[in-house]
């Protein structure tokens, strides 16, 4: 019995439907209501679906504002909401909602407007396979890890398309940079996750998490965890790898021409992606929802994820931006080799411990 069912019972719409004379419409609506009352719909809409993600992401934005403000000896948002401007991201989003969306002249209009929507859709899709607890997962896919990587592989296309569709030079350079960066950091990302797969003997997130009940994999594969974290930061375009958005070089890069709601959607997708990267790190290396059973597993998962996100955010306070050439150098010459070493380490650990 979930909250949607309670609300539907309260509204008592089924009674109303049974009075509809047309039998076909009646049956169709009945099927819709069965879906609305189902567990799947609850998972998609409320927990661990859209609602939870939006709230988490909004509060992550607020945490970032506050945390960076602390580092920079400022106060940060204060007025929206009672506790230190906790509603600031929501206020920001509402502001963006009412701003005009300007499409540049000679831009490829359909693509230009489609890209933010696709970005948010993709970002949200990845979260369907991340388990907040053993049961709180929308789809317990047997190839969950591969699925997330497959979706991640589609992000650079969208960044490139955003840059191309804007028909403007800075976004185009930004798009190309995003492509370079994300494609080349996908390789270390895959390879470092491979170590985990070797240890857990599975691509399913729940099985991977369960395999960590004795040791978290960060203890067994510290090198892999480090590579994975770096690659996640690069994939999510956070500092020090925010090269595709480098403001002072190429004026916000591939999202330079976006404004209003479409810009809001892009920011939302980037934050969902950040949350998703941290969630993946949690699931692969920090034992996911494992934790003392005093509190529910979802609490442990969210706590660990938020801590990882905060670590990534803290980097923004202390590190400047890399050059693209340095980034590619690190990716191909250092991380790739290290991640291959990591696979050998994983095999060794596997042979010794299990």
């Amino acid at each position, binding site marked *: 019995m979930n909250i949607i069912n309670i609300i539907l019972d309260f509204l008592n719409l089924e009674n109303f439907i049974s009075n509809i004379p047309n039998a076909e419409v009646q049956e169709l609506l009945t099927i819709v209501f069965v879906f609305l009352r189902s567990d799947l719909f609850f998972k998609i809409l409320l927990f661990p679906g859209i609602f939870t993600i939006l709230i988490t992401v909004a509060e992550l934005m607020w945490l970032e504002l506050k945390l960076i403000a602390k580092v920079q000896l400022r106060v940060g948002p204060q007025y929206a909401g009672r506790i230190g401007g906790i509603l600031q991201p929501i206020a920001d989003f509402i502001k963006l909602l009412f701003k005009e969306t300007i499409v540049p002249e000679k831009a490829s209009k359909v693509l230009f407007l489609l890209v933010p929507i696709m970005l948010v859709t993709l970002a949200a899709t990845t979260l369907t396979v991340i388990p907040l607890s053993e049961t709180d997962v929308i789809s317990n896919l047997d190839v969950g890890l591969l699925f997330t990587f497959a979706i991640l*592989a589609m992000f650079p*296309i969208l960044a490139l398309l955003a840059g191309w569709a804007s028909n403007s030079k800075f976004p185009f350079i930004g798009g*190309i940079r995003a492509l370079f960066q994300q*494609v080349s950091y996908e390789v270390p990302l895959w390879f470092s996750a491979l170590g985990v797969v070797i240890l857990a003997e599975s691509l399913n997130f729940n099985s991977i998490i369960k395999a960590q009940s004795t040791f978290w994999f960060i203890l067994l594969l510290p090198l892999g965890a480090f590579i994975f974290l770096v690659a996640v930061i690069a994939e999510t375009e956070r500092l020090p790898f925010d090269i595709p958005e480098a403001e002072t070089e190429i004026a916000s890069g591939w999202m330079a021409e976006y404004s209003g709601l479409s810009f809001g959607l892009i920011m939302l997708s980037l934050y969902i992606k950040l949350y998703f990267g941290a969630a993946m790190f949690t699931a692969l290396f920090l034992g996911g929802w494992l934790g003392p059973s005093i509190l529910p597993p979802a609490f442990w998962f969210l706590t660990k994820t938020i801590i990882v996100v905060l670590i990534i955010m803290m980097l923004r306070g202390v590190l400047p931006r890399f050059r693209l050439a340095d980034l590619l150098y690190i990716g191909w010459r250092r991380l790739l080799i290290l991640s291959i070493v990591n696979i050998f380490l994983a095999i060794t650990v596997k042979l010794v411990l299990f």
Partner: protein
Amino acid sequence: MQISYLSTAEIVFILIAAVTLIAAIIALEAKEIVHGALSLGVMFLGIAGLYILLDANYLAMFQISVYIGAVVVLILFTIMIVPREIWLHRPFRITPEVIAGILAAIMLIGSICVLYLSTPAWSLTPSEAPFDWSVRRIAQSIVIEYGIALQILALVLFAGLMGALTLAKVEEKEEETK
């Protein structure tokens, strides 16, 4: 009283197939070449959807990450780097290539028809005893059953890669001497 005559899997199949086909046609016919490349990506996505319908999740994921994550990205990148004018204004003319293409299409469709007619039982739903698609099973079949074939394939690929690198190197040197 029956709402639909098709099962859910069949509806989904028809939708995905339609999207795939339309995307394939757009990929060939689009005037803006970027749109064409994009619909190629959509087509690959549709094919991945078909794989999922056939319970081949592993294959579907690789379809997405290899074809969309690598091939489409490469195509898009190449298109965007090359100046736009080259792609525009290609008048349609019946050349030997066109005739050959039409012939090939007829042969392909014909052979598919022959295959379809010669296959007795044909169903969209997965077979009764589904093949074990688990990752462990795939790994075993790749490494143990087809291990030698894989090694040879890897060697061939490696040789090809080295050859490509050598060729690229030679060209670079020639450019330098110029």
